[in-house]
């Protein structure tokens, strides 16, 4: 039985759904430097991303079910929106360097450390490549949503959106 593509059937957006989303930046823009990638494809009443952006680069407006629209020229990729999204659906991608950098929200224990080599996964959770952890940010206003930045080969810039969960330590 062929698995149907799309968020309603697979639980993650298909490439077609992402391309149609007003929150996803163009490939050209990604090559220029860090930029937000808002993988929000369903209309639900939700707008914290709009308020979280200090540069006014995200617009939801009214009704708040509107999909967020990214102004990729205003966006500098600061990443404030990543932890603000209740759906953990916002990422920052940077294709300007030799290796691709992908920042994503992460809410598991334990957290990786800067410099760690980790298994990086695609939207279906499949390990596709290994990457190096560049940054792990835990700001108080993120309220326990850590933002991790990994470095992977450029080929994976549209693919990697998280890491495989790490084994917990049993210190009783």
């Amino acid at each position: 039985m062929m698995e149907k593509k799309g968020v309603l059937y697979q639980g993650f957006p298909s490439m077609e759904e992402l391309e149609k989303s007003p929150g996803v930046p163009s490939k050209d823009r990604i090559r220029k430097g860090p930029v937000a990638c808002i993988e929000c494809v369903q209309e639900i009443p939700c707008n914290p991303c709009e308020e979280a952006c200090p540069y006014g680069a995200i617009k939801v407006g009214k009704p708040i079910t509107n999909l967020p629209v990214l102004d990729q020229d205003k966006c500098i990729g600061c990443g404030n929106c990543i932890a603000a999204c209740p759906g953990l659906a916002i990422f920052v991608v940077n294709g300007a360097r030799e290796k691709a950098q992908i920042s994503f929200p992460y809410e598991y224990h334990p957290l990786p450390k800067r410099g760690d080599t980790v298994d990086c996964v695609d939207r279906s959770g499949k390990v596709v490549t290994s990457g190096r952890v560049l940054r792990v940010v835990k700001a108080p206003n993120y309220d326990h949503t850590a933002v991790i930045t990994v470095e992977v080969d450029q080929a994976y810039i549209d693919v990697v959106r998280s890491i495989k969960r790490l084994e917990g330590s049993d210190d009783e």
Partner: protein
Amino acid sequence: MKTKEIAIIGAGPAGLSCAVEAAKAGAKVTLLDENLKPGGQLFKQIHKFFGSREHQAGTRGFRIGEQLLKETEKLGVEVLLNAAVYGIYENKTLAYIKDGKDYALQAERIVIAAGASENALSFPGCTLPGVMGAGAAQTMINVHRVLPGKKILMVGSGNVGLIVSYQLMQAGADVVALIEAAPQIGGYGVHAAKIRRAGVPVYVSTTIKEVIGEEAVERVVITSLDEKWQPVPGTERTLEADTVCLAVGLSPLTELAWMAGCEFTFIPPLGGHVPIHDENMETTLPGIYVAGDITGVEEASSAMEEGRLAGVASAESLGYYDEETAKALKDEIWQRLNSLRTGPFGEGRFKAKIRQLQARRQLA
């Protein structure tokens, strides 16, 4: 027997919000809950809520609960815990058992905010230890800090199934799969995306065939369904699991409303038989209001808004607000409620609530 102004049954998000609004208006409020701690299901919600800033979007559910609780304390709301209300009788008298003793109190206004309970599912092996409601697992991990199992099969892809799967992984368990009998995922795509990213397979058009084990769950057998929702022979798969969580819907806990004599209507999208109410959340019995999941299964945000409505309306009916002030407050709340009931997920609930209000008008 004591007479209270406003007695609210249930200290979940609807009851707490109702207490805060009514007390803000100046009414004397008594809040009863059968549990040892207030908050209902709100304190188990460790994820960030959606909505707008007025809905506290981006704030974790349990923090919203903590805020509400502080406000009830500040406003001097009388809170009776471990107090199970078991009956509503004539003249708005309610009977409750608290700490093993029997009491009765009379109120000028009653708000029933009793919430909803999880549905069960029947299949061979469904009574084995390890088969439990998804909410039960959520209670164990987020309130009691104990894992009910390590390898979980989640049944149901509504928001409860998706969110609890995520929370089980945050607690250190593995979710071996999430199955959904319908041909598509029922809850938010963003919730599903989080668990897919974590490696949880999601199988639609799939249901449980049986659960196997001697003293507890050891293995589960799942099977695919055809377009007529019938099992397709030969598609059975066996998965190793020690726990099966059922997230197959909620049903409003309506016993007290039935007993009191409120009129009901049958609206499947809201969970079945629901009490009829008007725009003030008042039932067909004057002075008895309902709010939250008891009126129809939605979400915590709608429960809080309905609670606020009932709080303002009941306080208004006691003379604590004049008509104009109350209308302004209620209009604001209705605007926020309506904004929650929009989009492909909310529209259905909006229509269902319209049917419920129409049922009230037809009886007038």
